[in-house]
């Protein structure tokens, strides 16, 4: 099938179903087109509600979290505490207020936010409920597991420490 024949046979709906065609604009035309676009977007942004903005920012956090747990290598800076801090920034809550929202002590929240304590399942579920399911508990769990996985894979000190408790280690060759 020759591509030219195919394209000329398509209806507008079929074209839109399968293509965005390249359009060559001169630099001047492109400048005007971008100016028109920016004007239309400015009006759209003015009409955006706070609720819409909040949802967009929460979805951004969700996708950043998903990308990190699914695709990206471990990064010590991107732990539970980092994403929890981001969440609090987005929902624009003070620690005391947020601790009250999810019914935990402010000290515990502070420990979670400073990476001095790990969250339990209840906290992850409360975060899910607080976000109205935008950020599921399973995402928080996978985030914590990613740190744990890295730790168990690379913790040389722990290996050194535990070695003394193991007797009759198997002697295997050629593994």
């Amino acid at each position: 099938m020759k591509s030219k024949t195919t394209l000329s046979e398509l209806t507008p709906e079929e074209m839109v179903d399968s293509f965005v065609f390249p359009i060559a604009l001169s630099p001047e035309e492109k400048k005007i087109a971008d100016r028109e676009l920016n004007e239309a977007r400015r009006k759209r942004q003015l009409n955006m509600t706070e609720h819409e903005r909040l949802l967009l920012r929460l979805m951004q956090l969700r996708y950043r979290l998903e990308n990190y747990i699914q695709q990206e290598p471990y990064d010590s800076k991107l732990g539970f505490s980092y994403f929890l801090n981001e969440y609090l920034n987005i929902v624009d809550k003070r620690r005391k207020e947020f601790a009250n929202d999810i019914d935990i002590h402010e000290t515990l929240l502070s420990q979670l936010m400073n990476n001095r304590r790990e969250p339990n399942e209840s906290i992850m579920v409360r975060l899910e409920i607080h976000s109205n399911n935008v950020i599921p508990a399973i995402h928080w769990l996978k985030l914590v597991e990613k740190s744990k996985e890295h730790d168990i894979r690379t913790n040389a000190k722990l290996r050194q420490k535990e070695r003394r408790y193991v007797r009759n280690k198997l002697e295997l060759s050629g593994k």
Partner: protein
Amino acid sequence: MQVTECTSGQKKHVTVKGLERGDLKKITRREYFFDWKAARKGAEMYKLSLTEDDSILGLVALVDVPAEYRLEINLLVSSVQNVGKGKRYEGIAGCLISFACREALTKYGDLACVSLTPKTELKQHYINKYGMSPGGKQVFVEGKELLDLIKKYPS
């Protein structure tokens, strides 16, 4: 992400990934309509493939415009078997546009926008099909409509 097999109505899983160097040999003008090597200039290229056999069903070239919190779709095609009345799978362009929306949202949050410059006679069709808004010569999607597109073709 899923596309629908037109004959059976079956949903098939697809993934969108960055184009690799080795893919360029497979991307012929006959199969994908345009000179994709030329389209690479200044754009990030992505392929939509079936998870089960890795065959490339569609391609998109995205240009990042960070100063405007925007991703621009410069070119998008479905492979020749997936165009017109006899096409094999439905939803390829939708999945690729949805992918662009997700990328823009991840980068730019509440300011994120995806735009494209349509042929004049197709402008209203993009608006109808993908919930885009007119912006002079271009059409664009942002805000709730951008989220709606991501929801319609979920990853």
